[in-house]
């Protein structure tokens, strides 16, 4: 078994979350959510601690982590890019947008750029179908994105003005 090599305060964060949920096995998903929120992702060592605290097997924790697409075992990029692949976005060209992101960033879905700046993911329907196709960068939603805008969106973040209003397209 891989030896746990987390920092003590990280372990404390995890233990505190588990305790908040009474170390109850039934709260596993809530615990994973909260820990991921705090640590950004759920590497193996973190799952080991959670399993131990909730008195369940680490295989079960891993089984749950790999079942739900919300949980990630790899750190996301500084600016995680999510392309909505809901039907409404799909029929309005989300796939072309996705391909353009892949091409521009030279990564596949689920990967991060070498500099750790961007990670690329798909998600299922944000429910913002009125704005389709929709792209999220971090918490920011871009609506009606055309493939030709992709380069600009990336450049904006690269230039450090990603959150400025200039990039808003909705």
């Amino acid at each position, binding site marked *: 078994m891989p030896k746990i090599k987390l920092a003590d305060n990280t372990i404390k964060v995890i233990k505190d979350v588990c305790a908040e949920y009474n170390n*109850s*096995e*039934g*709260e*596993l*998903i*809530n615990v*994973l*959510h909260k820990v991921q929120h705090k640590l950004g992702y759920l590497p193996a060592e973190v799952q080991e601690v959670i399993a131990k605290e909730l008195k369940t097997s680490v295989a*079960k924790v891993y*089984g*749950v982590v790999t*079942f*739900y*697409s*919300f*949980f990630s075992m790899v750190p996301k990029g500084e600016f995680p890019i999510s392309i909505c*692949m*809901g*039907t*409404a976005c*799909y*029929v*309005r060209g989300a796939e*072309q947008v996705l*391909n*353009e992101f892949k*091409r521009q960033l030279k990564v596949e879905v689920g990967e991060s750029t070498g500099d750790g700046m961007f990670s690329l993911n798909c*998600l*299922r*329907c*944000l*429910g*913002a*179908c*009125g704005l*389709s196709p929709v792209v999220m960068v971090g918490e920011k939603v871009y609506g009606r994105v055309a*493939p*030709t805008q992709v380069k600009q969106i990336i450049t904006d973040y690269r230039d450090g003005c990603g959150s400025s209003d200039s990039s808003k397209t909705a």
Partner: protein
Amino acid sequence: MTDYKMHLLVCGGTGCKAADSDEIRNSLKYWIEQTGMEDDAQVVFTGCFGFCEKGPIVKVLPGNTFYVGVQPGDAEEIVKEHLVKGRPVQRLLYTDPVTKEEISDSKGMEFYKKQMRIALRNCGFINPENIEEYISRDGYMALGKCLTELSPQEVISEIKESGLRGRGGGGFPTGLKWEITNKSEADQKYVVCNADEGDPGAFMDRSILEGDPHSIIEAMAICGYCIGADKGLVYIRAEYPLAIERLKIALNQAREYGLLGEDILGTGFNFDISIRLGAGAFVCGEETALIHSMEGLRGEPTFKPPFPSVSGYLGKPTNVNNVETFANVPVIINKGANWFNKIGTEKSKGTKVFALAGKINNIGLIEVPMGTTLREVIYDIGGGIKDGKEFKSVQTGGPSGGCLTKDFLDTPIDYDNLIAAGSMMGSGGMIVMDEDDCMVSIAKFYLEFTLEESCGKCSPCRIGNKRLHEMLDKITKGEGEEKDIERLKMLSHVIKDTSLCGLGQSSPNPVLSTIANFEDEYLAHVNEKKCPSGQCKDLLKYEVVEDLCTGCTLCFRNCPVGAITGERRQPHYIDQSICIKCGVCYWKCKFNAIKLS
């Protein structure tokens, strides 16, 4: 302050604009100036009135006079007769198709208001973060009535009589479900609200939770009273942070006001609700999977029976209803089953919320009585197809549903009719597709979805959907054979027949319905190796139109794979063996010199 006495509202919806409403507006303005009424009457453009087949539309305020089929040439008459003399132009009024009477006040033409908002009654009206606004609109009155005036059995009877069926897709009678859970003996029972709205393109549950969370809380408490549960759980997608936040605020307010907690309204009834987060698994919309997920397990469905009503969360009887279903409950109690069951069709009562999306003008959330036709929804409410394109198909029921052709446009929407047409109600996504959408690709898109969302527990869903997807992929790449279509059908039927849960049992529906309704498209892909909609990029060719190419080298410089060659100021050439069909040249070209074939 300018105070216009009259307003002329000219429809600026896409349909009406296409029918020259710009010109109508200009003419109206012209004649208003000519008659010197510019200080009394104002002309404004509005959004779509949603009555596009009768457009262009002009409405005159005050009086709500509703003119249909208005032409620019009619402007003079409207101004001179109506505005100046106060005499409505009779020939432009809408004629009631039944009574043949002309209707001058649009308030008298309620039937034109295709929408009827029950579940969405408070969305967009009240501040969802203020419980008092909910209370002011009869909020918690239904709960009060149930707790003080009705026995659980009487409430169940009322719900049964209303004919309310599950709005999450299955259409199971809600009252019956409550009754079964009521009759299951146990020391602890649960009310679960399924807010794991996973159908891509459906967002009504999110809107209700964001816009009217108290209606769900109230309904869950009523359900708890009926079945004998004091605990409720809302299982909600983690992708809906705002809905979660609003729900949390609402729960806290309800507790503060004593509408949740112990001894509610002094009746001795206890009820409280907690939130469970989903984590991105579509299959958790299936109730047994949802329950496992709430228990901290992989969201794998289990065989039913036992149904959750008998053995659900932690093995206890559990009543699971979805958000929209719950949203109807307080209204049924307040207005009575007999009011509710007059709306809708014989077997499907009430209204249904749809999320209109895709190639349609008025993308949005609508609520119509059961029995409204697809045509009314798409054209009268949705404002027709975007960019004046040809309607091809409408997809209902999400990944479990099917694609319906224009032959079904006049089908009244209800649970049974949609199933008979080869689709299903689902949770209410309605995606409109136009001539540019390839139906084989659409089927493949949905399969990709189920493939990714299948839990993997049963073999037909785990492997069968993979094989379906592979066959569709082959076809979209031009590598399919005619016999593949037959194979697709056979395999689809077996997957439907043998899968463990609703996901697998319905996952081949998009395949079957597209084959049934668009077989010619499949045949074009396999026999002619052509994609009639020009969507399947492997069947596409980007070529330079030599006559239009100026040799600006823009495409050459932007091609990511160096497939384009050519000298400056000379027509360029695309090497098909290198081209990856990314389309960059097509977008970049400023001279339309790249064509798709």
